[in-house]
């Protein structure tokens, strides 16, 4: 029922209108309750996205300007993507995103699956172990970054400790090395998120019908075969969910890089998220910053939209 219907209802004869008006209010109430949230989402999510897209086509530098200049910012990003000598910070960001994203996702999934399978062997003390693998997920990325920054600092952390216990040749300075600093982000990221992936796989394993496994065992399948041929293929939906969640976390990663590396030596740990932030707020290149934000949004949408679409559709069936 639209507002115009409600208003026109008032023109009706008096006595029944009083009831009709109330009923109509009652009928419209659910929509009135939902409206503010929906309006806020439309404005502050979708409206703002349009605004950002608009800004990316302007020549905004230190302050937003609203004169369209066209694809300039995207052209610059495109040129920078191939500027390898010396690498532009966008090139570094894109390459790092590739390295970080692929390693983070694959290691988290591999480790999560491994621990889930191990935990699923009727382990005593599972109730104690499971929360241990999962607690990093409750921490802020800033806390994780602070802890690992210390841990990986060659002068004071792991390297010095190894020297102190007699392993003199131990050398681990990735966090100070511009070629390897992005891998330290992978380490800390995996530490934080792999327990969560484990929980997803464990839930998936517990959902598998025990009869299938019994049948396979009766047919003489070995444990390894059982997992490779039957259980892991049955977990395909969990792989998909884990991939989606991790990919979207990887693209959004910002806090961890900032806290762990502060951008890395010479900006070597740049990611699209840090690139966006520095171009928008400190390098006075708002249009370029907005263009990079739009690219991030498109990448995430390319992953999330088909997934949500299929999930919602499946639900409707």
């Amino acid at each position, binding site marked *: 029922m639209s507002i115009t219907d409600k208003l026109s209802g008032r023109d009706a004869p008096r006595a029944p209108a009083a009831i009709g008006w109330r009923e109509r209010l009652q009928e419209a109430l659910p929509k009135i309750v939902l409206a503010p*949230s929906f309006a806020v989402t439309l404005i*502050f999510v979708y409206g*703002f996205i349009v605004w950002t897209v608009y800004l990316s086509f302007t020549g905004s530098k230190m302050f937003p300007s609203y004169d369209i200049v066209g694809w300039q910012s995207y052209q610059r990003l495109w040129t920078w993507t191939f500027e390898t000598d010396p690498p532009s910070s966008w090139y570094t960001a894109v390459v790092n995103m590739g390295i970080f994203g692929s390693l983070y996702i694959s290691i988290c999934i591999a480790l999560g699956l491994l621990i889930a399978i191990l935990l699923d062997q009727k382990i005593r003390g599972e109730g104690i172990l499971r929360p241990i693998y999962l607690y990093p997920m409750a921490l*802020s990325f800033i*806390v994780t970054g602070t802890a690992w920054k210390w841990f990986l600092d060659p002068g004071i952390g792991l390297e010095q400790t190894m020297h102190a216990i007699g392993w003199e040749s131990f050398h681990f300075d990735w966090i100070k090395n511009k070629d390897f600093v992005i891998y330290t982000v992978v380490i800390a990221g995996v530490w934080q998120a792999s327990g*969560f992936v484990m929980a997803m796989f464990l839930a998936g394993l517990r959902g598998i019908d025990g009869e299938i496994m019994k049948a396979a065992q009766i047919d003489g399948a070995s444990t390894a075969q059982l997992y490779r041929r039957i259980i892991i293929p049955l977990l395909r939906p969990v792989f998909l969910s884990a991939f989606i969640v991790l990919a979207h976390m990887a693209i959004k990663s910002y806090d961890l890089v*900032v806290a762990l590396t502060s951008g890395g030596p010479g900006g070597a740990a740049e990611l699209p998220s840090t690139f966006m932030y520095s171009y928008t707020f400190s390098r006075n290149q708002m249009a370029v910053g907005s263009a990079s934000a739009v690219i991030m949004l498109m990448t995430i949408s390319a992953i999330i939209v088909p997934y949500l679409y299929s999930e919602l559709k499946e639900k409707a069936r």
Partner: protein
Amino acid sequence: MSASASSGTAGGSIVTRVVIYGLLGLFAVIYLAPLFVMLITSFKSLDEIYSGNMLALPRNPSLDAWGKAWGSACVGLTCEGIKGYFWNSIKMVVPAVAISTCLGALNGYVLTKWRFRGHKLVFALMLFSCFIPFQSVLLPMATVLGHFGEIGRQLQDSIGTSLGFGNPTVNLVFVHTIYGLGFTTLFFRNYYEAFPTELVKAAQVDGASFFQIFWRILIPNSTPIIVVTVIYQFTNIWNDFLFGASYASGESMPMTVALNNVVNTSTGVVEYNVNMAAAVIAALPTLLVYVLAGRYFVRGLMAGAVKG
């Protein structure tokens, strides 16, 4: 995740069992190590840190670093510790969690029990908003919050109070409420979807109103999902860095931003023990929630991961 029976084979020789327990134990040690090192380091003196082994227990455990982190560590130019920022975070988290949870409950109720044409589209649009990279709304929001600041100043001049306009904590509550709505709506919608509609219909026939049904029938049956939502929102908002770093500065920074400043503004000797104590303090609220209600925390994560 309930502790239902393992699907694993549980067979195998003693050797296999030993290997399995060994691996699980090793992983547990690796996962615990950073927290352990953070904790013991926060009880050490600086000399001990610079000379010693990071895995060794503190020789003379002391709370000095904790006291300093709480009360006198330097955040940027002011050296009053992180206590003020801790309270900033609390003042930001409590209203933001409360408002977004209440709205989420109402939205979930409408979207499942009072469906209208287009309810799916509304839900899909709200759901997608959970996943956008916040970078794509960061700058417009900064502009809008800047205008709020101006409104606040004008109100201050004309009526003597800014009504909260332009206050950084109010701004962050506003921002977190908006960008949390998608998740809270998702949680309640999925929960109420499974709630028997017949009960709602029966109450309607008996003449119960929209809010009576919500308040008397749904809310008393919503305790688990309320706990899940509150924990999820609490953890997310407490741990947020991007919005805090973008929209609050100086005295109004939330805890995470202040912690990052403590760690990165060390002039001269880096006081690792103070940094670690500050990090543990920043982590305590969410860790505490995790220890007390881990089950609900996991449920929230899973509900946020397995959509629809």
